[in-house]
């Protein structure tokens, strides 16, 4: 009979309509902004700089090595290395970025910067509500805007943050053991720090 196929299809649509009131599998509308989808842990959006402790300037992990600047595919990172050094979390004297800008209007969220960073200093954020009417003012993020505490990292990516913390603790223990050994022979050791040898390739974001 002509129209039978169409009628069958309409039955299916009706089933779907009614089903949407009962079945979670039918993914009914999430009423953003009042309700939100559950946060997926691995989600990435834009990079941020991790700092330890409370003071973002003192605790900044980034040493301004400019690897991410070089590897960034769309070239949206701009770093200027500092002239002087400051002690890092472990106590070693390190350079720090005098300028660290990310132009998020160019960033493609590929997280290659995270992958290549040997210092666990740059990580991906999950914040996405960033729409602005000011292109240059609102989308060029400087060091202060980019810095976020390690606790925040632990909140948005708990698994990765735990792995990263463990890695850093291990590094720290190694350095301390070395310093101890060195301290027995020589008391005053001005360390010019070699880059921490962590495996950038396998680090999770």
């Amino acid at each position, binding site marked *: 009979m002509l129209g039978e196929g169409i009628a069958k299809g309409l039955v299916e649509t009706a089933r779907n309509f009614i089903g949407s009131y009962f079945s979670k599998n039918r993914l009914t509308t999430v009423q953003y902004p009042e309700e939100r989808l559950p946060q997926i842990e691995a989600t990435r959006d834009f990079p941020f700089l991790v700092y330890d402790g409370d003071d973002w300037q003192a605790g900044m992990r980034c040493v301004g090595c400019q690897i991410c600047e070089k590897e960034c595919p*769309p070239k949206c990172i701009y770093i200027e290395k500092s002239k002087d050094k400051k002690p890092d979390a472990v106590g070693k004297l390190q350079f720090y970025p005098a300028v660290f800008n990310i132009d998020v209007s160019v960033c493609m969220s590929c997280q290659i910067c995270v992958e290549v960073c040997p210092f666990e200093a740059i990580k991906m954020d999950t914040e996405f509500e960033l*729409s602005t009417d000011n292109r240059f003012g609102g989308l060029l993020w400087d060091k202060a805007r980019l810095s976020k505490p390690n606790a925040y990292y632990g909140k948005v990516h708990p698994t990765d943050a735990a792995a990263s913390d463990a890695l850093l603790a291990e590094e720290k223990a190694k350095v301390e053991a070395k310093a101890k050994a060195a301290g027995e022979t020589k008391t005053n050791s001005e360390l010019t720090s070699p880059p921490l040898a962590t495996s950038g390739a396998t680090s999770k974001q």
Partner: protein
Amino acid sequence: MDLELKEALSRQGIFTTTLEELYNWGRRSSVWPLTFGLACCAIEMIATSMARYDLARFGAEVFRPSPRQADLMIVAGTVTKKMAPQVVRLYNQMPEPKYVIAMGACAISGGPFKQGYNVLKGIDRYIPVDVHIPGCPPRPEALMDAFITLQKKIDAQSLTGADRPRHLNAEEPSEFIVPQYGAHDLEPPKNVKLWNIITKNIPNGPGTASDNEPRKD
């Protein structure tokens, strides 16, 4: 009108409004976008209009294929130099009041492809953009957030005075120059007038002496 009085009245079931509020409410609540996808972001735009995110809740139910019936152009994707004249022409064909959302890195600045010879480094070289959403591509929620931002922006507009919206100012242009294909590049490579307005307020921008000098903090 006094806000407290207004609230007190609304509790009594009497709703008052000003012409301005009514006008802005009308504009804000039925922003019809143009069915206009350029690249990757267009897929997220489609996803946003589907059941799970449902852009219709913001009064953007109807995607109009014709620019004559649309209020909002979502520039969703990379604008190439070959496409730029058409984008500007579509914008010119839209009736006032009209808004532009630059969705995604490519539309804002050329994004990851800005080093390409055929990629326009930001649609705001030719048309004024109201809201920028960074992301590559922005999540559907980010597009909805931009919608809310746009609605707030419309709500805050006053109908009179120097800062009234463009469509109420007869001196402001509603159409912009359409670039022409040249032998090596688009002619002109940017709408200088518009560009100067955009870059005027950058603290460190091209208008200032410390152009491209690193920011000191």
